[in-house]
C-alpha cells in the first residue's frame, strides 16, 4: 500500500517541525547529489510552481544582507528534499512506467505542498498566476538566498500597515437613516437598503458617521457608517451628544466615570469626572472628587474650585451671548455656593473679584449687580478687564461689542449713547439728535449758517461721512444701508459714508436684507437691486419676494444660484439672478420648511407638492402636513424618499 508511509509522514508533520527528518528517510536520499532534469520536471505536477515562486522571490532579493536563520535553512532543506523526491520519482518512472508510482509521487508532492504553504505564510508570496517560470536549474544559487526572509517580513509588515492605515482613514462620513419597526430601531442607507436590521431598543440619528444605540440588555453602543459596533455594547454606560461632543460614562477602575469624546469618538478628556454637564457655548461643568470647575470647548479644565465639604457643592454658570460678528472672548458668571465671579470661557481667567452679590448676565459681556436702592450697577468686560462700569441707568445694552457703543436706558426711557473707548457720552449736545443703528451713530444738526440739516455718520473713533439735503426715512441703517427720501418723493439708499449707492430712485424699496438685496419698484413693476445699486432683476414683475435668508445662503453654497420668487399672472415662480426663470410661475404659494436643505413646499391647485430647488425639479411625493426634511432624505407618513422624490423605503418594510 502506497499510502501508509505517507500517513505516518503526515502525522509527524507540524509547521516548522523538523520535516527533513522524515523526508531524509525517504528513498530519495540516494539521489541527493544528482542534478535535476528540467524537461522532466516541467512535465510533472504544478505543485512545483509554488517552490519556483519562492525561489524566484529569493533571487529577486539576492542583494539583501546575509543572515543565518534556522527557519530559512529548514525550508532550504525541505525544498532540497522535495527536489530529491522528484528526481527519485523520475527515475522510477523511467524504469517502470507504472501508474501507481506516479500516484505515489503525487502524494509526495502533496506533502511537500504543505511545506510550501508554510513557507508562503512566512513570505506571503505573490499569486500563483505569476509563478510559471521554472528556475529549478538555478536551485543551488537560489537556496542560499532565502536569507532575505527578514526583508520579506518587513515588506509584509509594511503592506499590512498600509492596509490597516487605509482602512482606518475614513474617506467619507456615512450617515445611515434611522428606521423604526415594531418599536425596534434599525438603519438603512441612502438607497433604502437595510444595513442594520431593526433590533435595537433605542437609537439616535446618525451624526457625522455615528449613531448611539441601546440593545435589548439596556447596554449602549455606538455604530459606524457600516452599521458595525464602533464602540462595543457594554464598553460604555451611556453616551449623549451635546453640541459636537459626546458626554460618555463608563466603568473604570475608579468606578463609574464620565469623559468627553469628540464627534470622531476620540477622547477629548480622560474618564475621570464624577459628573459632566453641558452649559452652552461649548462650556461643560464638572465635578471630580472635591473639585468642581469648567471645561472649555476643547475639553481643557479652565477653571477649578476645591470645595471643603463634598456635600456642600453647588455650581452654576451663566454664559453671556455674543451678538453680531464680534470676535471678542465670551465671559460667564460662575457661582460656587454663594459667591460669584466672572471668568473668560476660553482661558478660565477670573476677571472680577469674588462677590457675595448676585451677578446677572446680559448679552455681549454685559453684567450687572442688583442694587435695591435704585439703579443696578452695570459693567462691561472686554479683553479680560472691566472696561466700563456705571450705576446711572435702569438698563444698559450693547448691540454689537465691536461697535464700542453702549446704549444706556434711563428710568424715564431717555437714551444715552456711551463711547466705550473714551467712556464719555456721545449725545452730549442737546441741539443735536442722535440715533444709533447697525453699529453707527447718525447725528442730525441744524446748521443755521447754511439753513440746512447736516447729518454725520460716525463710530466712536471716527466720522465715516456726512450729508445734507437728503432726508433719511427713519434715520436707521439696516444691513449697512439707509433708505432715504429723494426730492421726487421716491426712495434711494445711502451707504455708511453718506454716499448714494445708485443714481436711480424707486417708488418703493425694501430695506436691504442680510444677503445684500433690496426689492424695488417703479410703476407697479418690481425688481431687485444689489448693494452696488445694480438692478440684478429688472423691474418687470407683478411682485418679487425673497427666499428665506438662510435658505438663500444654503442654495448659494450648494449650487451658486441666487434665487428670488416672482409673480406673474397671479402665480408664483422662481427666478435666478441671471433673470432666468428656473421654476415656472404656476404655483399659488411657496412655503419654507427648512433652511438647511434645498426643499420647499409649493401649493398647486390646492395640492401641496415639494420642489427640490437644487435640481429645480418637482418631486412626486404625495405630502401631508407631517413632512420632515433631513440631510439627503425626506420622511412622510408613507415612507422615506430621496431628494429625487424616489421612494427608498416604506414604513413597515
Amino acid at each position, binding site marked *: 500500500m502506497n499510502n501508509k508511509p505517507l*500517513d505516518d509522514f*503526515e*502525522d509527524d*508533520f507540524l509547521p516548522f517541525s523538523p520535516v527533513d527528518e522524515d523526508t531524509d528517510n525517504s528513498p530519495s536520499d540516494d539521489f541527493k547529489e544528482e542534478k535535476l532534469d528540467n524537461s522532466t520536471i516541467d512535465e510533472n505536477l504544478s505543485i512545483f510552481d509554488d517552490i519556483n515562486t519562492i525561489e524566484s522571490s529569493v533571487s529577486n532579493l539576492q542583494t539583501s544582507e546575509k543572515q543565518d536563520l534556522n527557519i530559512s535553512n529548514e525550508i532550504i532543506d525541505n525544498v532540497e528534499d522535495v527536489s530529491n523526491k522528484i528526481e527519485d520519482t523520475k527515475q522510477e518512472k523511467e524504469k517502470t512506467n507504472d501508474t501507481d508510482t506516479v500516484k505515489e509521487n503525487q502524494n509526495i508532492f502533496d506533502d511537500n505542498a504543505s511545506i510550501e504553504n508554510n513557507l508562503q505564510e512566512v513570505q506571503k508570496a505573490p499569486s500563483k498566476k505569476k509563478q510559471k517560470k521554472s528556475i529549478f536549474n538555478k536551485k543551488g544559487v537560489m537556496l542560499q538566498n532565502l536569507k532575505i526572509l527578514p526583508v520579506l517580513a518587513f515588506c509584509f509588515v509594511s503592506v499590512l500597515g498600509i492596509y490597516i492605515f487605509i482602512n482606518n482613514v475614513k474617506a467619507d462620513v456615512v450617515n445611515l437613516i*434611522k428606521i423604526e419597526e*415594531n*418599536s*425596534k430601531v434599525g438603519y438603512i442607507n441612502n438607497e433604502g437598503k437595510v444595513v442594520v*436590521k431593526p*433590533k*435595537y*431598543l433605542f*437609537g*439616535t*440619528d446618525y451624526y457625522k458617521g455615528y449613531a448611539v444605540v441601546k440593545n*435589548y*440588555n*439596556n447596554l449602549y453602543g455606538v455604530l459606524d457608517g457600516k452599521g458595525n459596533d464602533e464602540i462595543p455594547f457594554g464598553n460604555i454606560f451611556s453616551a*449623549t*451628544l*451635546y*453640541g459636537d461632543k459626546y458626554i460618555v460614562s463608563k466603568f473604570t477602575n475608579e468606578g463609574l466615570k464620565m469623559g468627553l469624546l469628540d464627534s470622531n469618538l476620540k477622547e477629548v478628556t480622560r474618564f475621570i469626572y464624577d*459628573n459632566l*454637564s*453641558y*452649559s*452652552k457655548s461649548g462650556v461643560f*461643568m464638572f*465635578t471630580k472628587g472635591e473639585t*468642581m470647575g469648567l471645561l472649555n470647548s476643547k475639553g481643557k479644565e479652565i477653571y477649578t474650585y476645591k470645595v471643603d465639604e463634598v456635600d456642600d457643592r*453647588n*455650581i*452654576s*454658570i451663566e454664559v453671556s*451671548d455674543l*451678538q453680531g460678528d464680534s470676535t471678542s472672548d465670551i465671559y460667564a458668571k460662575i457661582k460656587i455656593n454663594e459667591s460669584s465671579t466672572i471668568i473668560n470661557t476660553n482661558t478660565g481667567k477670573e476677571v472680577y473679584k469674588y462677590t457675595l452679590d*448676585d451677578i*446677572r*448676565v*446680559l*448679552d455681549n459681556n*454685559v453684567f450687572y449687580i442688583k442694587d435695591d436702592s435704585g439703579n443696578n450697577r452695570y459693567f462691561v468686560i472686554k479683553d479680560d478687564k472691566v472696561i466700563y462700569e456705571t450705576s446711572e441707568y*435702569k*438698563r444698559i*445694552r450693547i448691540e454689537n461689542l465691536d461697535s464700542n457703543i453702549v446704549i444706556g*436706558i434711563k428710568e424715564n426711557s431717555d437714551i444715552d449713547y456711551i463711547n466705550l473707548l473714551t467712556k464719555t457720552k456721545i449725545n452730549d449736545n442737546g441741539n443735536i439728535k442722535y440715533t444709533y443703528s447697525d453699529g453707527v451713530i447718525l447725528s442730525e444738526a441744524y446748521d443755521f449758517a447754511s439753513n440746512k440739516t447736516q447729518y454725520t455718520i460716525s463710530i466712536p473713533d471716527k466720522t465715516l461721512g456726512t450729508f445734507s439735503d437728503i432726508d433719511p426715512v427713519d434715520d436707521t441703517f439696516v444691513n449697512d444701508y439707509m433708505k432715504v427720501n429723494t426730492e421726487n418723493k421716491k426712495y434711494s439708499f445711502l451707504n455708511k459714508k453718506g454716499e448714494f449707492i445708485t443714481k436711480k430712485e424707486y417708488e418703493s424699496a425694501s430695506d436691504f436684507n442680510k444677503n445684500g438685496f433690496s426689492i424695488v419698484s417703479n410703476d407697479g413693476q418690481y425688481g431687485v437691486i444689489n448693494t452696488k445699486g445694480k438692478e440684478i432683476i429688472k423691474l418687470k414683475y407683478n411682485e418679487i419676494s425673497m427666499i*428665506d*435668508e*438662510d*435658505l438663500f445662503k444654503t442654495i448659494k453654497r450648494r449650487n451658486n444660484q441666487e434665487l428670488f420668487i416672482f409673480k406673474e399672472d397671479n402665480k408664483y415662480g422662481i427666478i435666478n439672478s441671471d433673470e432666468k426663470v428656473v421654476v415656472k410661475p404656476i404655483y399659488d404659494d411657496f*412655503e*419654507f*420648511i*427648512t*433652511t*438647511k*436643505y434645498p426643499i420647499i413646499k409649493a401649493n398647486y391647485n390646492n395640492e401641496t407638492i415639494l420642489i427640490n430647488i437644487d435640481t429645480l425639479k418637482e418631486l412626486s411625493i404625495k405630502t401631508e402636513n407631517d413632512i*420632515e*426634511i433631513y440631510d439627503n432624505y425626506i*420622511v412622510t407618513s408613507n415612507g422615506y424618499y430621496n431628494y429625487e422624490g424616489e421612494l427608498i423605503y416604506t414604513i413597515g418594510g
Partner: protein
Amino acid sequence: MKKGYTLIELLAVIVILSVIAAIAYPKIIDVIGSSKIKAYNVSKKNIVESAKLKYLADVNSLNVSEYKVVDLIDEGYIKNTAKNPLTNEKYTEDAKVLITNDNGNVSYSYVEGETLYDIVSKKNSEDGVYKEDLDYIYKGEDAQNYVSFNGEIYRILRIDSYRNAYILKDEKNKNININNIKSYINSYYNDNYSEKEKNEIVSFDILDYQSYLKSFNDDDSYILNNNDIWVNYNSQYKTLNCVTNKIEENSNANIRFVIKLKNDIIVRSGEGTQLNPYILGE
C-alpha cells in the same frame, strides 16, 4: 484503510468549527436579543390592553389616569407570574399605563420609569414649584428646572393637567423679523430636531406671555431677557420690551422656543440642577 483521524484533520475540524461558531455567535445573539425585544413589545401591548379593560370598568373623569402594572397584576388583569421580558424580573413599581382623556379622545401609553410629572408634582415652593389650578409652575430666579433634551439645555416652565411638560430653550435665537417668524419656527423645528425628538414633541412654538409672567416670584424669574423677545400674545406674535416688560409692536426681536412634550417621556437621570439636569428619554 485509515484507522482514525490524523492530528491535522482534527485540527482542521476544530478550526472550521470555531470559525463557524465565531460567525454564527453574533447572529444567534441578535436573534435572541431581537426576540427579547419582540416579547417585551408584545407584553407592553398586553399590559395596555389590560389597562383598557380596567379603565372601561372604572368610572373616571380625570384628564390622566395612571395604572401601575403591579396593581393590574394584584387585581387580576394580568397574570401574577408576569415578568418583564427584558430583565426577566418582576415588574417594578414605576411600570405603568398612562391613560389620557383629552375631551373624550382617549390614548394609552406604557411607561417604565419616572416622568417629569412624577418628579415635579412631588416638589413644592422650596424647590420653586407652585401649584396653580391643576398646573405645576416653576417660579423665581433659582428654579432648579434644568432639563437636557435634544443635546441642549431647557428650563421647565410648567406641567399641565394632562401631564404635558412645557420646556423653554435656555438659549435664544437672535434677531428675527416679524415677516419671518412663522417660517423661522417651522424651519427651526424641521432642521434642529431628529426624528426621535420630533416623536416626543406635541407642539413647538415661542414663549407665551402668560407663561413668562407666571415665571416671576418676587420680581425675579429664571427667564432673563437681555433684549426684546417675541412672545405669543393671545395667538399673535408681539415683542416684549426687556426693560419695561410691556408688549410692543416692533419688527425685530429674539426668540425663545417652547416645546410641549408628550406626557409619557421618562426621565433617565438627573436632579434638575444645572450641574445635573434631568435627562429625558432613553
